[in-house]
Each structure stands twice: as structure tokens, then as C-alpha cells.
């Protein structure tokens, strides 16, 4: 690590002010992604503004047709929330599938989506469930939020405040995780809204989360595993690493998509 000044504001306004005052400021949420990169000296900053003192940023609220999750809400809180389990059980399953107990007790939904790791689970949750990200200055739809490898639509100094999930008719989650970290090798969130529209989002397979429209259309017509039969998944442009080559990832997308549909139908 390189030296930095640590700040712990207790309000969002204070946090914004401190961030604005710094030449090179950075937000700290659960620290599960940021701190390792700082320890490896891959990231550094002059001022670290810790959001953990801002109570208003954490919490889960069920509203009319949606669930709102505060940016500083821990993965464990989402996994264990009675509201989420009732309204969108697949989202609770997603949160419960992240990392290990320690990571779930520290990591936050805001940190996860703002970091935008290509293998993170929440991006698939947000895109597959048609969520909206509320920031300190605007609302951004999930379709517009994730823009690239570790890249989001957030502007300089913009703070994610909460995520609003529309409650679907049904939704399913399937994840093939890496053995060590549990990060998704491939994971799929599928949902069907009351009107019948289907969203199917894949994480872990490309620079950032994406939807598979062919599968969505087939499922809109017939929400069943069989509807996915014969839909080819190309391996072109897919991520390749030590744990999975392109072909294996492409194959897993098909398998996980079917399992997500199965999961949605079983819930």
C-alpha cells in the first residue's frame, strides 16, 4: 500500500464534499475489492473516503412493485432479508452465492456494481432483473450502467446511493463459480415480468455483463428449458483464463441458462 489520508464522514453531503476537495479521492465500501488492489499497489489514492459511517446508505425497503436496496447494504443482509426472499428469491440466492461468509459480511451491493468486476454476480442481477441505479445526482438504468471492463456510467465523484429492483413474475439464478473465490465463471439471471417480457443476463463471460436476446425471445414465447434447445452460443469474444477457455464458457452459458430457467420455474 501507498500512504493515504483516511476520512470517515457520517453523511452523504459530507462524503461528497470531501471527495470533491480531494485531488485524488476514492470511496471505500466493504473494501473487499478495493483493499486487495491497494495492497498489491495496483491502486492508490491520496484520500480514502469511507462510506461505512453513513447509516442512510444501508438498508432494504419494499415499495410498490419494487425493492430498494441501499448501496452500503451487505451481501449477507440481502441474502437474509425476508423482504427480498419473498419478493425476489433469486436475488437473495444471488447474494448468498457470493464469496464466503467474511466477504458477504463486508462486501456491499454498491461496491460490487461500481467496481464492475467482469465476474461479479450483482451485475447479472441488476441487468437480469431490470434494476435502476440511483446516484447522488440521477437514476441510471442497468442497461446503461455497465459499460466495460471495470467500467460504469458513473461520472467522476458520482456516488451510487441505492438500487431499485422491479419485482418480476418469476426469476431464476444459476451460477458456476470458481472454486477458490466463488466468483462467477459463468452465471445467469433470468426473469419474466408480469407483462411477459423476459430478461436473461450473463456475467463472467465477457468484459462485462450482457443480455442474450435470442434466448429472451424464445423464453418470452415459451418459458421453459426446452425453449432454449438449439440456440447456439458462440464462443467468439468470450473471456478465456486458467479456469475456463472460450468453448467451455460458451457451453456453460447454455447450461447455466437452462438451470436458471429451471430455478425460476421451481421457485
Amino acid at each position, binding site marked *: 500500500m501507498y500512504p493515504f489520508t483516511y476520512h470517515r464522514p457520517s453523511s452523504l453531503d459530507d462524503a461528497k464534499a470531501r471527495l470533491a476537495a480531494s485531488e485524488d479521492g476514492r470511496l471505500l465500501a466493504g473494501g473487499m475489492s478495493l483493499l486487495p488492489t491497494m495492497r498489491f499497489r495496483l491502486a492508490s489514492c491520496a484520500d480514502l473516503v469511507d462510506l461505512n459511517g453513513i447509516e442512510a446508505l444501508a438498508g432494504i425497503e419494499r415499495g410498490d412493485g419494487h425493492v430498494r436496496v441501499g448501496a452500503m447494504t451487505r451481501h449477507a443482509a440481502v441474502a437474509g432479508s425476508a423482504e427480498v426472499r419473498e419478493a425476489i428469491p433469486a436475488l437473495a440466492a444471488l447474494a448468498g452465492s457470493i464469496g464466503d461468509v467474511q466477504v458477504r459480511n463486508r462486501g456491499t451491493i454498491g461496491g460490487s456494481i461500481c467496481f464492475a468486476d467482469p465476474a461479479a454476480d450483482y451485475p447479472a442481477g441488476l441487468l437480469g432483473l431490470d434494476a435502476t441505479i440511483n446516484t447522488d445526482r440521477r437514476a441510471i438504468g442497468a442497461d446503461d450502467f455497465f459499460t466495460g471492463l471495470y467500467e460504469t456510467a458513473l461520472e467522476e465523484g458520482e456516488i451510487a446511493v441505492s438500487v431499485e429492483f422491479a419485482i418480476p413474475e418469476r426469476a431464476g439464478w444459476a451460477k458456476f463459480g470458481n472454486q*477458490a473465490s466463488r466468483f462467477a465463471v459463468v452465471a445467469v439471471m433470468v426473469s419474466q415480468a408480469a407483462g411477459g417480457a423476459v430478461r436473461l443476463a450473463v456475467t463472467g463471460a465477457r468484459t462485462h455483463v450482457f443480455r442474450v436476446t435470442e434466448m429472451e425471445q424464445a423464453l418470452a414465447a415459451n418459458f421453459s428449458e426446452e425453449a432454449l434447445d438449439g440456440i447456439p452460443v458462440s464462443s467468439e469474444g468470450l473471456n478465456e483464463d*486458467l479456469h475456463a477457455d472460450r468453448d*467451455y464458457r460458451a457451453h456453460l452459458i447454455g447450461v447455466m441458462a437452462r438451470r436458471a430457467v429451471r430455478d425460476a420455474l421451481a421457485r
Partner: protein
Amino acid sequence: MSDRGHIPESRQREKPRADLQWIGKSMKRVEDPRLLVGKGIYADDINVPEMAHAAVLRSPHAHARIVSIDASKAEALPGVLCVMTGADAAEVCDPLPTWASPPVLQAVIAHDRVRHVGEAVVAVAAEDRYIAEDACDLIEVEYEPLPPVVDPEEALTSTGDAVLHPERGDTNIGLERTLTFGPVEEDFAAADLVIERRFRWPRSGGQPLETVGAVASFDEGAGRFTIQCNTSMYNYCGWMIASTLRVAPHKLNIVPTLAGGSFGSKMFVHKVPVMAAVLARAVGRPVKFMEDRIDNTTSCDNHASDRVYYAKLALKQDGTLLSLKTRIIDDYGAYLQFGVGQHGNALSQCVGPYRINSVEVDLAAVLTNKCQQGAYRGFGSEVANFVIERLVDAAADELGVDRIALRRQNFIQPDQFPYLIPTGNMYDSGNYQAVLEETLKLADVEGWRAKQAEGRKEGRYIGIGVASCQERSVFSATEFWMWNLEPGVEWTSSPDGVSVKIDPTGKAFVTLHSPFWGNSPETVAAQVLAEQLTIDPSDIEITYSDTDQGLNSTGPGGSRFTVMVTGAIVGAAGKIREKLLRIAAHLMEADVRDLTLEDGAVQVKGVPDMKMSIAELADKAHYYRLSMPEDLDLTSGLDATYVYDHPVTTLPDPDERHMGIFYPIMGHSCHIPVVEVDIETGQVHFLHYAAVHDCGTMVNPMTLEGHIRGGTVNGIGTALFEEFSYDEAGQLTTALWTDYLIPTIKESPADIVVGHVETPSPFTEYGVKGGGEGGRMGGPPAIAAAIEDALKPLGVTIDSLPLPPSKLRALIREAQARSA
């Protein structure tokens, strides 16, 4: 049988008995309370006044010449005390210790040439670690890349620039030779069937939470080093470090710290203590060097066997196993720290629990641009277990007989022990049939066969694997050098010592001369001494000596410590008991022959009132010299030391017809995992796991079960996930635990059902055998067999590990393509 050598008389003093009070109890570990409240002192907990900190700049290249090093910016950084290159280090120290002969020279800091990614190129000592690391970032090194040698089979033919150690000749073969034991050619000629397979065993390693660390200081006045370090073997060959540092052996004191795990990797740590010491001498202040994770994974003694086997098993149509031939190419990495000791080790049990008449091993130890091999749980013989078990499975399949039945048919029988195998090693005792039967019972194999058949109808792939494996324990030093081509270190002793003292109030103090390694040496010592002196373990205190105080002690490793500490305690306690009896006889005016030691007191047999407690006798022994008999040898106090030699070892035959007895205390285990393979993803789940071990007389069943369960999960790691994987350029792609996959609770069976059979050793005290390498000895072949069984309908064969989902899925896809 004379071709296989001779069996010496047993020197056992304490026979196994049913009425033992402490040995055999699942007593809680003596070590735990202080470790659990955080009072254990590990290497990184040590801070001494004036201490500086080291960091190391490491090679980014697998193989390169060092053209130039510009450290001027680093030297100018405030807080930097010393920047040391390989050339600087070579002026003040000699090459690191090695058991290889001819040696492969290894320097603490590379000079002229780097031979693997992560090799030390420059070391920095500074006021703190941050400054030391900042300084490393400022050093400019110019390299001239050389061809990286990564594939072990390609290394066989390297020449020219691809040769790592040109001074040893124009080749990367570190050692190559063939050893033949028994009538191999005749047996193959007589065979009806020869099973031939190529196996690949992956490079993996022990992954202790605590990396290697040392705090060294140099006293210019006395010309003397003190090094605190989490190493072992310091009281056996710690003086070799002094030679490297160019001081006389008595000018170095190595002080052990607790080791936060080793699994073998801290057997004889050399690079880290030498690094800290040369820097300490250079800066005139104590220096701490604590490896970070990348220091450890890229450049310590953590990498293990990395082998290709071309194996042939000859047998008769009726299932009788005859002979085993293996061509082994072992990728040793850049240096040969322990020579090819891993292959001495593998010869100890290469025929498994089976009667096999002859053996040929053709070994090529190749040098490649990878971290050198060290010691790791199994030390090479776990690979032999994998090979023989896979061959026996293949033979059964080929003959169309049951895999279990073929094992039963070829087991060495209980009345054949002690048994010399073709390589000369002795199996002291065993009952393989009993272990198998017990495991079959715990595993409910019949029940699972039924579920497997049901499952197949539903498209589920359930498999059951059986491995019956040797678990050799208590190595003798000969294994380190028996393969050497030239005479070098040719030691035949590998003892362990203890010092025992009873203070004037009757409390006992034990000093161990080898370190705490994460295992339970204090618990063992307390249980055995309590048994010997009929005292309570809570009245015993245990400490560890440094090299100044130390007795000749080899230390843990090769599952030897429980046997050796038990033997040493029996020896020392015997002397103390004798003195207690003598003093008591004198004071109570009784005949020694009428006395017994029981319940912590010396008692005149049959006269309940006539007794003296150990505390009373200790008081007399310390303070009442004038009440004692006149005898110069009867000194005041109550203490004894004892160095217990290896219980039974013999020399290799000069003509190499056999290698003598070198690893004879033979445990055994049977593992039966039940797995389910998700054929769509290639993921393996454990449905059940049963393991039965026979480690002779158990000192502490609870801690032994820990070794079995922990070792089994270790074995799951080897079988399914773990690999130090180098790419074509020689980059270690799994240097971090994000990529080097270690099984967690989620990848482990919900329960590992453990059972025991006790076949006492006729050679060790109380009949104890070692069990420290535990489940890793038997897990991998059993898991491979279970996966193969699960995928039988698809026709998948398993001959290489590990099998992470991606690789298993690829095998399934190929099989599906073949049958489509």
C-alpha cells in the same frame, strides 16, 4: 530373499499393551490453549531493538542472463540501509546447502543468471518494509533472455543456451539412472498381460498460512549469528547454514519459532535465514525477512513432485501381479535441494501393499526453469501410491475382474511380515485385509452400488473408488542419497533427542530439539512421559531448544516425529525411573526388585504404607545429597537426555541389488470416496467418504483423525484443483490463491467417516507408527478411481491430475464425441 537384504533384531523396549493409561487417549492438544488465545510467537511476531526489514526484487524472467543492475536510485532513497546484489552476496557467502552429489549450485541471490521466475535478484534492507519495497521498485535490471525450459520431456534434450547449469555439462538432466531389483526381465517374459499407462502427476505444494520468515542478528564482538526462524532440521544439519555464511558452526545459533504450518515445506529452510543473515551482517543491525505470499509461492521450498510416468505392470491371467517397470521423468525445477530424495522415498512403497516380485525404476530428474522442488506431505511416495493403484485398477478392468477382488488376491498376508519388498525396504507389519474390510463396512459399498445403478437410470453419474495405500513412516537418512551418482553426504543416522528434567517439587520439564510445525509434538511428549512416569500430563511443561542447547535431532517430516519422540521419551524416562527406584530403595531400605512405580509414587510391592511420591523423591534427589549412597555417578537432581536412533535401518547393498531398509514403519490406509460427476459442467461432488488408517498403536486418536481428515482434503486438492502451473514462457500462472485453488469446506465431503485398525509395529516403542501425512497418501488414487467409475458409461480414463471442472468436462466432451 537374500537379494533383498536382511532384517535386524527388534530393539523395542515397550511392548504394545492393552492397559495403557495415557497412550491411546484422545487427549486435547497441549499446544492449543496458548495458540488459541494468540500467545504463540511466530516468526513475524518477533521484533528486536534496531531491527531493519528486508524485501527482495525477484526475477520476472524464467531464464535470463543478468546484464547489469543499476541500484543507485534505490541506494539514494532515505531509509535504505543496504542494497545487495548476487555478486555482493557471493563475496560474503557460499552456495546454499544441498544433498545432491554432484551438487547443483544455488546462491541465496542469483548472480549472472536467473533460472526461474521469482528467483532473488537483489535484496534490500531498510528502516521498514515499505521503504524496502519502494527501493526494489527503483532498481533497474537489464536482462538478456535465454530460452525457457518448461516441459519436462523437452528438458531431456535441451542443449546450448537452454541449459540451466552449463558447468554440469550440456544437458538439463540433473541425474539419470536405472535401478533394477529382482528378475524384472524374467517376470515380464513370464507375464500373460502387461498393463501400460502414461501418468501425469501435477506440481503442487503445501500451502502453510504462515510463510517462511527469519530475524537474524550478527554480534560483531563475538563474531556470531543468531537466527530466529520457522525452520526444522536445525539440530540435525543447521551447521550447514553456518558454512554457507562462512562462520564456524559454533558461531551460529538457530532459534526455532513456532511454525504456522509446514506440510513439509519448512523441512530445511535455507534461503530465507541466509538472506536475513547476510543482510544483518552487512548493515550491522538485526534484519527481519518475512516472505510475502508471492515470495513464498514463486521461490520457496513449497513445490513438490512433478512427474511423468511411463508405467508397466506385468501380471498373470489369473491375476497374480509379477513385476513393475517405470520410466519416470521428474521436473525438479532449477535446483536439487534434497538431491532426488523424493525418489528414495518413492522406492519405499512402490509396490503398494501387494506381492510384486521385481521392480525397475528408470529415473530422469530434469532441471527446468521453475522453482526448485522441496518437501511436501508424501515426499514423492504419494505419487507411487497413485501409480500402483491406477495400474491395479486398470489391470482389474482389463481382466474383467472386480477391482477390490484383485487387491485382496495380491495383498501381502498378515503372516508374511516383516516383509522385504524388491527394493529392499521392509514393511514391518500390517493387516491389509482387515483395513479393507473395515472400510467396506463404513463405506456401505453395497448400498452405494445400488444407488449408482438407480442414478444411472436417471442420468446421474455416481462413482465409487477404492484405494488401498501404504503409508510409510520414519525415514532413514539413506533415502536422501541412495540415488546419488557420486559419494557426497552419506549419513546413516536420523535420530531424535529429548531432555527431561523433574524439578525439586516433582514437576516435569521436557525439551524437544525439533520445532513445532503445526502438528502435536507437545501432546505426544506429554502423553508418553505421563505413561512412563505415571504422572499427570498437566504436570509436564514442554519447551524447544535452539542449536546452542540442541541434541542431534532430525525433526518432523516423513511421518516420523510421533514414533521418534515416543522412543526418545521412553529412553529418557527409563533413566529417570531407574534413579527414582534407586533412591527410593535406599531411603525405604528396600530391594529395588521389590519396588514399582505407580500413580506417581514408588511403592514397595504388597506394602501399601511403604511408598514415596515422585515429588518427595525429587526433593531428596535435589537437596539431600548426604542421605544418598556414595556414588560419583549419582548426581544431585533428576534429569536425563536421550537420543533415540532410527528404530530399524540398514545400508544399501554396495552392488545396489537392494537399497536396504530405510522407511520400514509401514502404516496402511484404505480410502473409499463416493462421488457424483455433473457431466454438463465437469464438477465433482462428494456424496460420501470413508477412510480407515492403520498407524499401529495410536498415541492420540483425535489428533490422528485430524491428520486423516485434513490430509484427505489435502488429497482432494491434489486430485481436483491444485497446481503450480507454468505457462510456455515459464511464468507461474498460479502464484496466488485466487488461481491456485485450495479446497475449502464447500469442496469437501460433508463428513469423512474415519475408522482405525491397529497393527502395532514390532520395532517401535509401544508399536506406534507415523500418520502425519495422513489422507493425502490415499485420497488422490481413490478419487481418480471414483471419477472413472462414475464416468464408466462414457468410457473416460483418468491418468492425469488435477481434474478441475474445465479439464474433466473436456475429457467428457472427448468421450462423448468418440461415442457419437
